[in-house]
C-alpha cells in the first residue's frame, strides 16, 4: 500500500474540496466543447490528500465496478501517476468515461466518510484526472495479456456494458469480437451522451485501447438481422448480449408525428453520432428551434435541452411532471443546465402537441400537476390540477421520457427468456435461460446508467470466464 503520512490529520481535514474548473456558462452554452476542463495536477494532488485511506473503504462498495479508490488515490498522493493509472485501469475498463458521466453523488462519494462532516473527496474528478493522464502517457497494450485460452466470445453491442466485458475477457486471454449495429463503436457513449459532456475523442481513445489489447470490433452488424443470436452462439464459445434499451417511448398524445417532434434518441443521435451540430460539414441535418420544449427529467432530457440551447435556441425548457427534488438526472447536470440558462417548468404534463396547417409544431398544450399519494416507486404520484391548462409556444418538442427494450434481437431468439417488459431475464452474473448466453446493461435492467451497465459487463465477464473454464 502506498504511504500517505506526509501530512497531519489536522492538515488533511483542513483541505477544502476542489472545484472543477469549468467553461463560463454563457460561453459554453454556444459551443459543444467540454464543460468541465479537468483538474490541473497540483489541484489533483491536493484533493487526493483529502482521502482518509479508510481501512474499510465504503467508497469501494459504493462503486458498481468496485474500483479500489483509496489505492489509486494513494498513488496520486505519492506522485506515482503511472501506478495510479494501472491500478484504476485494472479495476475499470473505461475510467475516462465514468470519471465524466457517473452519478458519483449517489455512489462512491455518497458514502465517503469525509462527506459526513463537509464535502466528500472528489473521487469522480480524480478518476477523470488519472484516466486522462493515462490516455496521454500510457500508450498501446500496456497490460500483459494472459496466455490465449483458445476460447472465442462474441459481445453484442459496443456500449458501456459490452466494452467493459470485452476489456475484462481479453485480459483473461479469450478471443473477443464485438458486434455493433452502428458504423462507429461506443453505443450510447457516442450516440447519446453529447460532446460537451463526453468528447467523442475520449470514447475513441478508450475503444482504441481495447483494440490495442486485441479486441476485434465488427461494425454495421445487427444481431437479429445480419446474424441471429443462434448463429453467433454456434460460432463462439459464449455470447454476451448488451444491446441496450434502444426503443424510444413516446407520450402517446395527439400531434406527436408533427414535424419538429423528436424522440431524444433521434435528436441526440443526429447531433452526436452524425455530428449535425456541424452541418453542412457533416451531411446530417437537425432542426434548430427558437423555442424548444424537452419533456422528461433524466440525464437524457438534460443532454437534449442543453444541446438545444447550444444549437441556438432562445429558450430551451424542461417540462417535468414532478418536482425539482424528484429529477432523476445527476445533480451536476441539473446545476450546469441552470447555469446555462435552461428554464425548468416543474409539475407540468403535456396533453397535446399543437401544429400549423403546414404540419410544423407550434406549441405544447400542458396541464399543471400536484403531488398526490405515493405510487409503486414510493414517489408521490403527480395528478392534474383541474382548469390549469396552458399552451407553451414552441417549434421543437423533444420526448425524453425513457426507452424500452428493443425486440430486434430478442424476437429472433424465441428460447431466450424475457420478462413482461421484453427485457432479458438474467441472474446476478448475467446468465440467461440459454447456456453460454449472458446478458447485461439496459437490455436486462431497463434504462439505467453507464456505470451500472459496466458493472454488469464486469460481473458477466467473470461468469463467462468461469463458464469457459468448465467447458
Amino acid at each position, binding site marked *: 500500500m502506498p504511504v500517505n503520512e506526509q501530512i497531519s490529520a489536522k492538515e488533511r481535514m483542513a483541505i477544502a474540496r476542489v472545484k472543477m474548473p469549468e467553461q463560463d456558462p454563457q460561453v459554453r452554452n454556444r459551443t459543444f466543447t467540454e464543460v468541465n476542463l479537468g483538474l490541473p495536477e497540483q489541484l489533483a494532488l491536493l484533493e487526493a490528500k483529502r482521502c482518509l485511506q479508510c481501512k474499510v473503504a465504503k467508497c469501494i462498495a459504493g462503486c458498481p465496478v468496485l474500483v479500489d479508490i483509496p489505492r489509486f488515490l494513494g498513488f496520486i498522493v505519492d506522485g506515482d501517476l503511472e501506478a495510479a493509472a494501472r491500478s484504476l485501469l485494472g479495476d475499470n475498463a473505461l475510467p475516462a468515461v465514468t470519471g465524466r458521466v457517473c452519478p458519483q453523488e449517489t455512489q462512491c462519494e455518497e458514502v465517503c466518510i469525509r462527506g459526513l462532516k463537509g464535502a466528500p473527496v472528489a473521487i469522480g474528478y480524480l478518476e477523470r484526472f488519472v484516466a486522462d493522464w493515462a490516455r496521454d502517457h500510457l500508450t498501446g497494450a500496456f497490460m500483459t495479456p494472459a496466455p490465449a485460452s483458445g476460447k472465442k466470445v462474441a459481445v453484442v453491442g459496443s456500449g458501456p456494458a459490452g466494452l467493459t466485458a470485452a476489456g475484462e475477457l481479453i485480459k483473461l486471454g479469450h478471443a473477443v469480437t464485438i458486434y455493433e449495429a452502428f458504423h462507429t463503436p461506443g453505443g450510447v457513449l457516442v450516440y447519446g451522451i453529447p460532446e460537451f459532456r463526453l468528447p467523442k475523442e475520449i470514447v475513441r481513445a478508450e475503444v482504441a485501447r481495447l483494440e490495442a489489447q486485441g479486441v476485434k470490433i465488427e461494425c454495421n452488424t445487427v444481431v437479429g438481422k445480419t446474424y441471429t443470436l443462434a448463429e453467433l452462439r454456434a460460432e463462439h464459445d459464449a455470447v454476451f448480449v448488451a444491446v441496450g434499451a434502444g*426503443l424510444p417511448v413516446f407520450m402517446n398524445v395527439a400531434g406527436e408525428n408533427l414535424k419538429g417532434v423528436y424522440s431524444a434518441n433521434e435528436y441526440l443521435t443526429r447531433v452526436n453520432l452524425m455530428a449535425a451540430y456541424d452541418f*453542412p460539414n457533416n451531411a*446530417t441535418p437537425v432542426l434548430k428551434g427558437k423555442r424548444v420544449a424537452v419533456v422528461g427529467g433524466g440525464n437524457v432530457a438534460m443532454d437534449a435541452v442543453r444541446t438545444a440551447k447550444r444549437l441556438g435556441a432562445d429558450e430551451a425548457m424542461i417540462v417535468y411532471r414532478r418536482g425539482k427534488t424528484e429529477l432523476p438526472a445527476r445533480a451536476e447536470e441539473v446545476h450546469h443546465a441552470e447555469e446555462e440558462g435552461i428554464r425548468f417548468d416543474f409539475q407540468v404534463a403535456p396533453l397535446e402537441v399543437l401544429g400549423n396547417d403546414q404540419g410544423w409544431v407550434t406549441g405544447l398544450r400542458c396541464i399543471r400537476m400536484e403531488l398526490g399519494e405515493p405510487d409503486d416507486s414510493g414517489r408521490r404520484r403527480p395528478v392534474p390540477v383541474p382548469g390549469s391548462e396552458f399552451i407553451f409556444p414552441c417549434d421543437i418538442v423533444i420526448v425524453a421520457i425513457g426507452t424500452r427494450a428493443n425486440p430486434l434481437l430478442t424476437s429472433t431468439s424465441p428460447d431466450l427468456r424475457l420478462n413482461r417488459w421484453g427485457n432479458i431475464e438474467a441472474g446476478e452474473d448475467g446468465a440467461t435461460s440459454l447456456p453460454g448466453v449472458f446478458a447485461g446493461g439496459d437490455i436486462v435492467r431497463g434504462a439505467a446508467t453507464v456505470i451500472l451497465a459496466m458493472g454488469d459487463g464486469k460481473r458477466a465477464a467473470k461468469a463467462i470466464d468461469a463458464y469457459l473454464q468448465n467447458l
Partner: protein
Amino acid sequence: MHTILSNTQLAPNVTRLTVTAPRIAQIRQAGQFVIVRSGPGAERIPLTIADADAAAGTITLVIQAVGQSTKELVALQPGEELRDIVGPLGRATELPEHGHAVCVGGGVGTAVVHPIAQGLARAGVQVTSIIGGRSREWVIFEEELRALGTTIVCTDDGSYGRHGFVTDALRDVLAAGGVDAVYAVGPVPMMRAVAEVTRPLGVHTIVSLNPIMIDGTGMCGGCRVSIGGETKFACVDGPEFDGHQVDFDELRDRLGTYRQYEQAAQDHACKMGQG
C-alpha cells in the same frame, strides 16, 4: 468495406450500383433494405435491395440522386469502396404461395417493386407488373420484370408503352378480375392513388414506405408512420404496410422535414468543389 463493381445510369438521375456485400446477398429476402454511408461525415441512407447474387456475393442498389448525399453515392465508380453497408433490415415481404399479384412501380420505386415481384414469382405466384415513368427514358427494370411475367409499361407523355398513369392500367387489369393482391411502390401520390383504386374493390394492397430514417433498427423513431391510426416504425415494423391503412398525408409531410437544409448542403458541396 464494400467494393463497387459496376455503376450504370438507368434513367436521367437514377443509378444502379452493384456492390460486394456477401453476407447480405446471402440472406436478404424480398422487401428488405440496407442503410449505406459513403464515408466520414456522410448521411446514413436507407435503400431497398433491388437485387442480389448470393453466389457472387453482390447486391444491387438503385439510387435516385436527389440530394447531396445521394449524389455522392452515385459518383462512386467501379473499384471504389463504399464504407458502410448495414442490413438486411426491415421485415421481408409476406409472400403468398399462389394466386395472381399485380406489382405496380413508379419511377425509382420500380427498382423496389422488382425484388417483391421476384419473390412472388419464386413463391409460385402469377405476377403482372405495371411500371411507369414520366417518359421513356424514366422507365427502368422493364427487362427484369418481363422475365417474371406480363409487364405493362406506361408513360405520362405517351413516349413509350401505354399513354397514361399506372393507375389507368391497373384499373383495366383489376376489371379483368382474378387479382388477389396489389403491391405498389413509388412516389407518395402514386401509392395513394393505387390504394384508392383498389380500396372500393377490396383488393389487398401492400405499399413500401420510405420515410426519413437514421439507424434502421427501431432506435430513433424518426421513421414513424401512422397505420390505421397507430404509430409504427417503418424500419422494424415495415417498410411494407397495408396501403389502405397508411396516412399518406402525414408521410408526405414528414418527408419534407429537411427540405430547407438541402439547398445549404448543395451550396456547401459546391464550395468544397464536389457539386
